[in-house]
């Protein structure tokens, strides 16, 4: 089972982002599950979102405590790496950051940092960085095709469809392939 955890703040698109990623996995023929945990709908409040994908039906109804993949939409949430300390060895952490990152990742975890805020800003999306990072995730892990992801963005973005597609594609092309 593939497990992805997304950390962001209300308004950055973590909740919609988890649904888009689930939509992309679903298009590739997998069973999926996506949900977010948030305390009331407040801008700026921490949001954690979860995505599971598997070849068989998913029965778990709980948070993801040891993900193989994590997306961090706001680098200030990294807290010196604490927020992703439980990512599995061999996993990948995708972070919205144009600057070098301080703090340690767990051993054997790959860090992929992209200035998603810059890309989102240029695409006219303001603080919504989730579609950029989904593009980065697709390229960096090879787990989902850009085509499936774009189709899911097209269906799942509630507004500014063209901008989100552009941002997603730019994120994809800004990242290196699977390490």
């Amino acid at each position: 089972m593939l497990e992805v955890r997304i950390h962001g703040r209300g308004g950055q698109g973590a909740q919609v982002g988890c649904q888009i990623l689930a939509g992309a996995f679903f298009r590739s023929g997998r069973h999926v599950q996506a949900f977010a945990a948030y305390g009331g709908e407040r801008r700026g409040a921490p949001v954690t979102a979860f995505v599971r994908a598997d070849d068989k039906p998913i029965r778990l109804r709980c948070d993801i405590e040891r993900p193989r993949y994590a997306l961090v939409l706001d680098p200030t949430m990294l807290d010196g790496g604490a927020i992703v300390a439980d990512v599995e060895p061999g996993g990948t952490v995708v972070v919205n950051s144009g600057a070098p990152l301080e703090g340690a990742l767990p051993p054997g975890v790959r860090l992929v940092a992209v200035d998603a805020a810059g890309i989102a800003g240029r695409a006219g999306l303001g603080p919504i960085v989730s579609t950029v990072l989904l593009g980065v995730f697709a390229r960096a892990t090879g787990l989902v095709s850009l085509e499936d992801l774009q189709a899911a963005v097209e269906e799942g973005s509630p507004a500014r469809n063209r901008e989100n597609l552009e941002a997603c594609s730019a994120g994809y092309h800004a990242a290196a392939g699977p390490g």
Partner: protein
Amino acid sequence: MTGVETVAGQRRMLLTGNHAVAYGALRAKPQVIPVYPITPQTPVLEKLLEFAQTGELTGEMITVESEHSAMAACIAASLAGARVFTATSSQGIALMHEMLHFAAGARTPVVMVNVNRTLALPWGFWADQTDSLSQRDTGWMQFYCESGQEALDTVLQAYRVGESVLLPAMVVIEAMYISHTLEPVEVPGEEVVARFLPPFEPERRLDPACPLSVGNTTTPAQWRANRLAMHEAMGQALGAVAAAGRLYGELTGRGYGATESYRTEDARVVLVAAGGMAGTAREAVDRLREAGVPAGLLRLRLFRPFPAAEIATALAGAGRVAVVDRNCSIGSGGIFCQEVRAALSALGQGGNPVLSYIAGLGGVNVSPERMMQIARDALGREGTNPEPIQAEGL
């Protein structure tokens, strides 16, 4: 409506639990939908409004000023012979409490979805079963669903059963872990649903052409007779739930019962759970079996009427029984466990060792590892526990 068409006119879509129950309601073609929004139920209302705007939903939506009024409107519309749907959660169902008794006493087969959410105080938005379990004695049937798919399917079955025995029915899903979880759901086609669910045609209804009133003062004997009739109807509902679950299975490929036994044959420890947590327990059972621990799961789907005999039969051969409650009756303990113990005792199986575990109160995460820990703990304990065991402390 997007998605992929599968068997029998079903459409496979990615839906949250909230949207899945809205599709269930849409297919049941309710004529009146009084509803008041509350987190985390609001997307149910929003989706139904969307259906109303596109013309798919032809029933009348009534936005009322409170949940108390929502249920009052449900009762009146149902007495007039309309099929009625509503949904609520937490403080909303608490405010409805008085009217829930009215609905059952008036024998109105209202169907309501309740999203299990913490009750204040403290304020919270998370999964906890206390809001619906607190309505245990209102005379409503209660179904606890493991997935969005099951919730959709159960809305339709609740109408069939409720309208046959004239009792209201509650379809319960957990906050976030089902209500806000996006997953593949098969939405049955209108033709299949029409074959499963006949129109609601009550023998008696409020009708200006033939005036009558409901809710007059009764004598003690009349009051008693009404209560006993409700109790008898609950008894009939047990059979009706089983029959509806079977027929639904024949039509859609997804059958349901009042309970579900999973790998309980030869099990030395059986986890008992309801709602979404049962899915996590199912995964835990498989992992325990892989590790050589003979574990099983008894999932409780129906809580009222309580399927006591079915539970006793299912647990007859079980070594240890561990009931996992995401609720706590303050001053007593886990509510499902109390019910299971009472049923076994009443049916002469008081010797079955039933342990009580409280897990995930207030939406605290219950992982498969936690479920495995509970099963292992139950296996290693002597006797039973008078005080519930807090799973997070294991």
